[in-house]
């Protein structure tokens, strides 16, 4: 049974059809990359899966269980967590609080107003762990808003994985990072996604090819190929539609 399964998913905005019948199946535990030209609909697809948008037609399943049209938080509680292409954090909260907020629900504290948040050892430990992994521990007291762009991208990932979700969607996590940072981020992502299912959008081919177990290519709202990296690299269609001469 596949972890995330899309069948015949379409999405229109007004007249313009953006997603045109996507069938996609992400296997449990694999690292799955999604590539495709700008405006192909990758982020939109993420928005559909994560419940930010409702599909016009088609069904989306998580572990075989239908999640089409659920609210984002309901989907998140079913174990799917996503990051955003445009950094999306809690700017006025400290770095620490940012991650802690991501941890709280999954630890079962929900809307509690009878626990003292600072005496929740488990929460603090997990938060600290995450911060160490994205190595922002020394910046934890700073309001997230004043971090540099690269740091904010790292925090974005931290918030995404904070809840310990087993399905993780990352939308261009390394965008705007330098080589070095990108490589560090990839290492981090590899570590964090151990034993989880990862679906990642990237334009940086080096990242894609050294991270992904399988790759799907989305072009104008259709998946034109979905296969092992090697096959994708060699596929003509993909060459023309996407990689161009650069790769």
């Amino acid at each position: 049974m596949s972890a995330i399964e899309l069948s015949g998913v379409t999405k229109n905005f007004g007249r313009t059809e953006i997603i045109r019948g996507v069938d996609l199946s992400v296997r449990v535990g694999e690292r799955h990359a999604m590539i495709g030209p700008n405006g192909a609909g990758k982020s939109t697809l993420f928005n559909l899966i994560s419940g930010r948008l409702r599909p016009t037609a088609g069904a989306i399943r998580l572990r075989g269980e239908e999640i089409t049209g659920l609210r984002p938080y309901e989907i998140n509680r079913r174990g799917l967590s996503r990051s955003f292409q445009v950094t999306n954090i809690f700017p006025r909260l400290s770095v620490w609080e940012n991650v802690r907020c991501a941890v709280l629900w999954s630890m079962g504290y929900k809307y509690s107003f009878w626990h003292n948040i600072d005496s929740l050892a488990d929460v603090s430990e997990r938060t600290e762990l995450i911060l160490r992994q994205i190595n922002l521990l020394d910046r934890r007291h700073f309001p997230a808003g004043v971090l540099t762009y690269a740091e904010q991208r790292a925090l974005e990932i931290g918030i995404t994985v904070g809840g310990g979700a087993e399905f993780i969607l990352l939308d261009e996590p390394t965008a705007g990072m330098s080589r070095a940072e990108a490589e560090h981020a990839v290492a981090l992502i590899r570590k964090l996604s151990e034993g989880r299912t990862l679906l990642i959008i990237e334009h940086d081919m080096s990242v894609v090819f050294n991270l992904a177990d399988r790759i799907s290519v989305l072009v104008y709202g259709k998946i034109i190929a979905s296969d092992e990296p090697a096959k994708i690299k060699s596929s003509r269609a993909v060459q023309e539609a996407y990689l161009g001469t650069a790769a």
Partner: protein
Amino acid sequence: MSEGAQTASMGRSASGILATALRYAAWVVLAALVLTLPKMFTSSFAFTLLSLMGISIIFALSYNMLLGQTGMLSFGHAVYYGLGGFIVVHAMNTITKNSLPIPLPLMPLVGGVAGLFFGIVFGSVSTRRGGTAFAMISLGLGELVASSALILRSFFGGEEGITTNRTKLLRIFDWSFGPQTQVYYLIAIWCFICVLAMYALTRTPLGRMCNAVRDNFERAEFVGYNPQFVRFLAFSLSGFFAGIAGGLAAINFEIVNSSYVGAEQSGTVLLAAYIGGVGFFSGPIIGAILVTWLQVMLSDITEVWQLYFGLLFVGMVMFAPFGISGLLMMHAPLWHARVLWRLVPAYLLALAAGLVMLTGVSLLIEMAHHLSTKTSEGPMMSFMHVPFSVHSFLPWLVAAVLVIGGYFFFRLTWPHVEGAWHTALMKAREHGSAA
């Protein structure tokens, strides 16, 4: 914002324990203060004033649960305060009528429940929206309730309202609650409990998620929370505390009327919270104390108190946008680094200059006021016990000199303040890195 982080990270460390100890100490001191305060004042009016302050502290804090914590700007918070008050009065009257064995001190709780109830009812519709939409809905609801208060006489008692008698309830250790002193202690204790409760609330998962929702509504949805529900909870809870405040007010005045739910009441609490500083828990407390004092006393000092009131607010938002507590907190690091004293001379200079200018300004205002509205009393007036004639040229000259002189004097002193501030901050930084 990051105290939570500090305490958590410092966890079991000695300094952590010290900090916690200090925090509790602070509460104990506060409690002691609350109970001994009346002893310091002789005039019985002090009790009235302190009681009012206690009430508005609760109210302002409950308001800040919305504005400061959850980022919801409400123009109708008095609704929950007022309805709490009305329910309490009705309750008291029924209790008296049927002589039920329920003592007065429990009544605020009734108000709280009422506030909670209406918080849930109105919250369920209004918290669906945020930002300006929410603000405008709250404004609409406020107006609706306020107007209904004049229409639905059987419940609201028209514009003269409904009266009650607090002494007629079951007595415990024969406290009649007739004298203001006893009412003060009732309010003080409730105030203390509520402040404690609301403070605790800010350090719970819900409290933290309120901040998160305030900062980034959408992202909260993607970490598993239903932000609308978070807002709703915050709203209902703040309704609860507002209701308690309203109940206490009803007990204090023994009368409730439409003005309890009115826009004026809602506006005042917004002012109090903001002036005190919505960014800090202590802010609304300070604001409530200040604004209550101004409202009650300013009209004795000058007839044009509204002018000063207005000028104060304009000044505050322009020069202290983070409120009084914001100003104080700026100095916290210096205080910890024990370098605050370095600022004192510069501050005194600036203060002197500022006072000169302000004196000039208020002299101008008072003279203009006298000239315009007191023609019948003749030209003689007195300012700070100095009698003079507004028709003579000298006082105007003096005022002008004070204003302009004060202004330039201030301009001169300001660089010193900044300089002192920076050196102190540098010192504080070193101290910080050393520690």
